[in-house]
């Protein structure tokens, strides 16, 4: 499923035009992106949570050449699936 399919599913579910469902979906995703950009975490009950993890700098290697390189500190968003969803995904096979 891509974003426009998600928008279409929402539009049908709540019976609004595609354009409105698109505005809603984009607002939610943008709000989540901005929160993560500010370093905030997101917690959606039954779905999962996002936290920003900080990684320190370390010495890595270019896998192709084997040359040592310094990897600068970085932040990465990390998603932890919620209990409900985790259990349902596992059951549902």
């Amino acid at each position, binding site marked *: *499923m891509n974003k426009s399919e998600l928008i279409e599913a929402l539009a049908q579910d709540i019976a609004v035009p595609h354009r409105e469902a698109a505005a809603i979906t984009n607002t*939610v995703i943008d*709000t989540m992106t901005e929160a993560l*950009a500010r370093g905030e975490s997101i917690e959606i009950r039954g779905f*999962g949570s996002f936290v920003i993890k900080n990684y320190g700098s370390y010495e890595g290697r270019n896998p192709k050449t084997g040359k040592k390189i310094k990897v600068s500190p970085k*932040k990465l968003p990390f998603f932890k*699936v919620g209990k409900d*969803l985790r259990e349902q995904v596992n059951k549902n*096979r």
Partner: protein
Amino acid sequence: MQTSNVTRKELAEVVAGKLGYPLSSCSDIVDRLFNAMKASMLDGSSIKLVHFGTFSVRDKKPRKGRNPRTGKAITIQERQIVSFRPSKQLRARVNRQA
């Protein structure tokens, strides 16, 4: 470090404030949006949201593990997990602000 936490409530408030629907409908709408995403994953199909990232359902093979408390060998059964891969844009956004 105490950082604020965004929940469905905040998302509903932003949707209400930006698009002018009543707050009560927005809570329901936000729930339904996440439910649509859950339904897709329970269907086994991944969700690709451009500029944000991809949620995918992956199969994990059974493997041997140990009960950390008793040290007893156990088999961890095959299972399905949800994984999220942030998009390039999201990773860049997160790192932009120091």
